[in-house]
């Protein structure tokens, strides 16, 4: 089956990103396809490359990047939510006249339409949030 996964919360503060990650891994292990992982609300904070979490616990952002690399996942940060929360890729930073960008490898910024498309194109949509 084709799964779409939605992550509505940022790393560490809520368990949502962890649960979404474990679910995505399990779905892939069972041979399903994960169409897209869409990050909305504070979920866009999973896509910053500037985190320095403690070494003795999981690195949430790096985990997503690694999973993306291994399976060619489409990890999408909603542009509207990202702009609100200061998550910018190189293009966005230039466009908005900001002096830095911070999106991590493996994530891309795109519009809310991608969330609807995920719902249309997937057989199942699963949301993790608060």
């Amino acid at each position: 089956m084709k799964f779409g996964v939605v992550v509505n919360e940022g790393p560490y503060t809520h368990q949502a990103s962890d649960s979404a990650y474990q679910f995505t891994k399990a779905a892939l292990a069972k041979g399903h396809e994960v169409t897209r992982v869409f990050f909305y609300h504070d979920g866009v904070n999973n896509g910053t490359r500037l985190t320095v979490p403690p070494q003795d616990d999981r690195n949430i952002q790096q985990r997503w990047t690694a999973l993306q690399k291994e399976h060619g996942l489409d990890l999408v940060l909603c542009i509207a939510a990202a702009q609100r929360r200061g998550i910018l890729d190189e293009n966005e930073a230039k466009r908005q006249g900001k002096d830095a960008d911070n999106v991590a490898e493996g994530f891309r910024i795109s519009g809310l339409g991608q969330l609807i498309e995920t719902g249309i194109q997937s057989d199942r949509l699963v949301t993790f949030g608060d």
Partner: protein
Amino acid sequence: MSILHTVNKSPFQKADLSSCLAHANAGDAVLLIEDGVYGAIAGTDAAKDIATADPSIYVLGGDLAARGIAGDKVADGITVIEYDGFVDLVTEHKAVNSWL
């Protein structure tokens, strides 16, 4: 067509579980995850609601173990599953309703 509901908050903190159960149809399934697994503990008011609920109730074992809730504390009639079972549940029901 049946729905899989997920509840991720403790019933002692928020009304998500009771609202979910009030809106679930027979044939649906409810999966307790994250802090929602506290709703699976036997002998509580939440357990009473669950016992009389129409849908099948499941609880994520990993989240129970993380919280030190042993299997023998889980109320009767609730099935403990892991993430692979979660994936299967999603395929078995037409849509997922996350009670956030």
